[in-house]
């Protein structure tokens, strides 16, 4: 039975990775699970300089989901390179760094540095709804995505995955923007912009008022968008949004994902990703599937 997949040149032992911002830089969960079993780890969104993040409260639970407005708090790429990367390298898994910035120059500077590090790929975050400048501002149009991706492509030789936001009318446009600019893959979806109000104080629950919705509640949106993007581009897709079981993984792969990430699912249980891998194997055995690559994009529409 083969679970190995190749995402834009990143050869992974299985299609299960953990999503940016939900796994830190691996340390905390490495105390609870064997992170070497994962196909890859996508790091917390990392910027050129450290970022302090937004005011609390930053998280709020909703029905089968949660809102967050962390604001990309992170120690910066230099700290990552010195402290977290050597730690992560001790494990037998691929390392994908989620890169974020607030200007094109910042993205380029950051990726120049990332290009020199011992990492397996870069996930360009053009989709965070929680910071004012940058991120999602670039990610919603064909032109915006193409421009920033091309400028990064020029300085980055490593596999480049562009992470897209679902907060658009037509996901195929930014997806094509990434492909036309030379991205090796796209990942989707990031969180959906949402809001929740305390009816007693009449104020939003999050200090930032709005935040990104994640978790099982958003899965059908993610599956739909992966399907639409898969129909629009030829580059592979890293699918995510609401995945908590092996069956969810299969669903995303049928829709067109080559690999997937588990995000909020890690908070439910540290071993969600490990269990998902076991459940994929079970599904393959039951359905006599020799190679997981066989099912990618094999949904049969009504």
């Amino acid at each position, binding site marked *: 039975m083969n679970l190995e997949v190749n995402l834009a040149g990143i050869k992974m032992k299985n299609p299960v990775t953990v999503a940016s911002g939900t796994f830190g830089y691996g340390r*905390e969960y490495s105390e*609870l699970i064997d992170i070497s079993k994962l196909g890859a780890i996508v790091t917390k969104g990392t910027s050129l300089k450290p970022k*302090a993040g937004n005011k*609390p409260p930053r*998280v709020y639970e909703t029905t089968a989901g*949660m809102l967050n407005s962390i604001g990309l708090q992170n120690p910066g790429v230099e700290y990552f390179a010195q402290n977290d990367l050597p730690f992560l390298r001790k494990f037998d898994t691929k390392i994908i760094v989620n890169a974020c910035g607030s200007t094109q120059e910042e993205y380029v500077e950051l990726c120049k540095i990332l290009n020199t590090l011992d990492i397996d790929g870069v996930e360009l975050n053009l989709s965070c709804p929680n910071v004012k400048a940058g991120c999602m501002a670039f990610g919603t149009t064909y032109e915006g995505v193409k421009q920033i991706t091309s400028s990064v492509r020029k300085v980055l030789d490593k596999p480049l995955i562009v992470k897209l936001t679902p907060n658009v009318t037509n996901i195929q446009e930014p997806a094509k923007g990434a492909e036309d600019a030379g991205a090796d893959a796209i990942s989707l979806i990031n969180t959906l912009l949402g809001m929740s109000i305390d009816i007693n104080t009449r104020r939003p629950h999050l200090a930032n008022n709005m935040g990104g919705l994640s978790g099982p509640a958003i899965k059908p949106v993610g599956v739909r968008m992966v399907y639409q993007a898969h129909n629009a581009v030829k580059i592979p897709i890293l699918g995510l949004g609401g995945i908590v079981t092996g069956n969810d993984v299969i669903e995303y792969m049928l829709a067109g994902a080559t690999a997937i990430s588990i995000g909020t699912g*890690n*908070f*439910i249980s540290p071993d969600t990703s490990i269990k998902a891998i076991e459940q994929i194997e079970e599904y393959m055995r039951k359905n006599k599937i020799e190679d997981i690559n066989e099912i990618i994009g094999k949904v049969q529409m009504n």
Partner: protein
Amino acid sequence: MKVNIQAKIIKKEKLLNDLYKFSVEAKEIAESAKPGNFIEVRVQNSIEPLLRRPISIYNIEKEQGIIEFIFQVKGKGTNILAQREVGEELDIIGPLGYGTFTIKNYNKVAIIGGGIGTFPLYELAKELKQTTNTKVDTYIGFRTKELVVLEKEFEQVSDNLIITTDDGSYKTKGFAINELKQNVEKEPVDMIFACGPLPMLKAVQSYAIEKNIPCQISLEEKMACGLGVCLGCAVKTKNSPQDQPQYWHVCKAGPVFDATDVEI
């Protein structure tokens, strides 16, 4: 070391109408837990409610491999938890939080808690009495007589227990902090430990800083992972500027902080 275990519920007690005490078999957690640590409880095996509930540890019985926690039924999650029964297993991660109460030999300390914020203070008082020669004065405040809990338990681990009620329906009328101030003025303490509602914590914090008394406070903030990964439970550091705030995280640097380190 933190672990994720299935912990059997061996005792369930209803302390008040909406207040429950659970005792669970959790050998690995009991072994390494410290006063101030908390656990993340998955109230049932489903995706709704989605997140675990952070609950502080009330009592640790290392030899028996048991931990106890007390929680108030506040919403969906705690409501389901309250319906779990003896014999069932609870999915728990713990012990969590690197910032815990400092146990050492003091001359005298004051422990102050309010309402449901008193629970993590029990293990603290107990360890101080059992493992050090510290004189422990405990101040706990409740709104009214019907809400007074754990009087006997705290009596056993304190040299003096001062109970206050806001409306004077039981013991001393008024706020616990006023009693603390009066007594500390007469006889100084080496440390104040506090846990409870935010207004009380703020009052304790500013008093301790003004009088230059070392003080540790236990904080709460909305939390998702409880492990230091999601960075949700931020609390502003004391010395960072308003326009460029820096943050600690309650689940990692805390939940217990030095009063001079945080702005609450």
